[in-house]
């Protein structure tokens, strides 16, 4: 485990150095992240004044949820999103997966190290700032234990996202042009940044059972804020384990199915 973490840390430093080579591009990327957050914030602020609520949810709760989603997505995307984008084209069609299979490290760890994106750490910081804004400045309410729970379940959310990324990228072993799924996934992900009770029943079911994005932020937060039953907290942990496990198993099956191109 220690060796894997060192490998990821070294790869992260190397990638960061490479990205900072194009400084202006990197700085513009930072500005983009700020704009992206501004989009969500402005939308919330204009439609949900401070003194109103939606189904018992105030703007502070919406900010907490956005923050949790950002931390979860940032952590998972930093490790797997770039791999998710390029896996079928670069590693399967061009056969570069062959070299991953001959490395002394597990193929998935090696691939994550090769494609990780340290810039996503900005998304994580952004999420922390949103939680801080809601908790300390706007006075979201709740004890330190709740705040600790929010941070813990944000990391659990990252495990759920990682599982989903792994499952989607592993389908590339069997399906061509799987990359077409990334835009829909991002759209569906946007649904998960709002409390699920605003959606029709069928969408709620989709985000709970089929693509468990509801467990990234909505269910744990609502549960921690005593808006729904506490049963959802252990259920979130179970879903995270199941999602990540399913992703790893599907990837391992894909590796067995893969036939090298002889590179």
């Amino acid at each position, binding site marked *: 485990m220690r060796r894997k973490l060192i490998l990821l840390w070294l790869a992260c430093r190397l990638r960061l150095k490479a990205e900072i080579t*194009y400084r*202006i*591009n*990197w700085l*513009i*990327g930072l*500005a*983009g992240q700020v*704009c*992206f957050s*501004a*989009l969500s914030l*402005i*939308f919330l602020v*204009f*439609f*949900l*004044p401070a003194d*109103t609520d*939606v*189904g018992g949810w105030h703007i502070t709760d919406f900010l907490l949820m956005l923050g949790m989603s950002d931390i979860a997505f940032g952590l998972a995307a930093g490790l797997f999103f770039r791999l998710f984008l390029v896996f079928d084209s670069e590693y399967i069609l061009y056969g570069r997966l062959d070299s991953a299979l001959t490395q002394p490290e597990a193929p998935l760890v090696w691939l994550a190290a090769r494609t990780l994106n340290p810039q996503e750490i900005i998304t994580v910081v952004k999420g922390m700032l949103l939680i801080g804004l809601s908790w300390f400045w706007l006075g979201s309410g709740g004890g330190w234990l709740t705040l600790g729970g929010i941070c813990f379940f944000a990391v659990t959310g990252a495990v759920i996202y990682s599982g989903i990324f792994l499952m989607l990228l592993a389908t590339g072993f069997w399906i061509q*042009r799987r990359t*077409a*799924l990334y*835009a*829909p996934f*991002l*759209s*569906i992900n*946007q*649904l998960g*940044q*709002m409390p699920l*009770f*605003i*959606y*029709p029943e069928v*969408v709620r079911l989709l985000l709970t059972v089929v693509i468990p994005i509801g467990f990234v932020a909505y269910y744990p937060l609502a549960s921690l804020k005593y808006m729904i039953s506490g049963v959802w907290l252990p259920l979130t942990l179970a879903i995270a384990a199941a999602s990540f496990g399913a992703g790893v198993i599907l990837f391992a099956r894909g590796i067995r199915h893969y036939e090298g191109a002889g590179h």
Partner: protein
Amino acid sequence: MRPGNDWRGALAVGMLSFREFFVYPWDLFVTFFTQPVAFFSYACFILAVGSTTQWPLESLLAYYVMGWLLRMLFQQGIEHTVSARILSGELAVDLTRPLGIVPLYLGMSAGRLAARMTAYGIPGILLVCLAGGAVYLKPAGSWLPFMALTLNALLLQVTFALLLGWSAFYFSINAQLIWVTDMLIRLAGGLVVPVAFFPVQAATVLKSLPFYYFYGAPLAYWAHGGTWQTDWLAGLTWAVLLMAGGRILLTGGLRRLAVNGG
């Protein structure tokens, strides 16, 4: 190079782009049904909040539904194509074609627009009419000003996409610039929150930028009516200014372009 060649060439490129668009029908299917999902979350949120804004709920829904349709048509990705060709050096091949590079990319854009209209626009309009009917349909008198503002918006979109593409002459990578500009267009163009809802000073600043005329002007007219001539004229002025800016970027870019003979 004769102007006749440009027209014929642009038409041929447009027809090719149109056909290329339908090569992967699965992508079209997935995009058509999932792109609205992002707008769906906004719509559900607005419905849940109820109309706490100065516009009635029907106007807000009409605004966001039409916003989704325009987005589907306008998002052609010409800026990515142009940038990729400049950065990879393929522009050298484009410069040897029997038509100018501006008509070449305009033809590409027209082909993609026609394809997007066929694959997304018409089915989208049918779907919206079936689902919402009278909420989204407006009296016939509203269509002409709306179309004038939309055509202006399209002109601005294409001009700005080319301008972004030409920026690749000056940057080693311009992917983040394209992404940030898209965010800015969504924010300042009123695609996320109608510009009329911002505080007066902020709305005035936003309306003085070109981005408002990309989406905000036609959508605000569609949802809320009002005068349109000033917006139309301002949009057109911005289009002319952006065209001039694009021309300067292209001329300067071609001057510094070093073709490696590959």
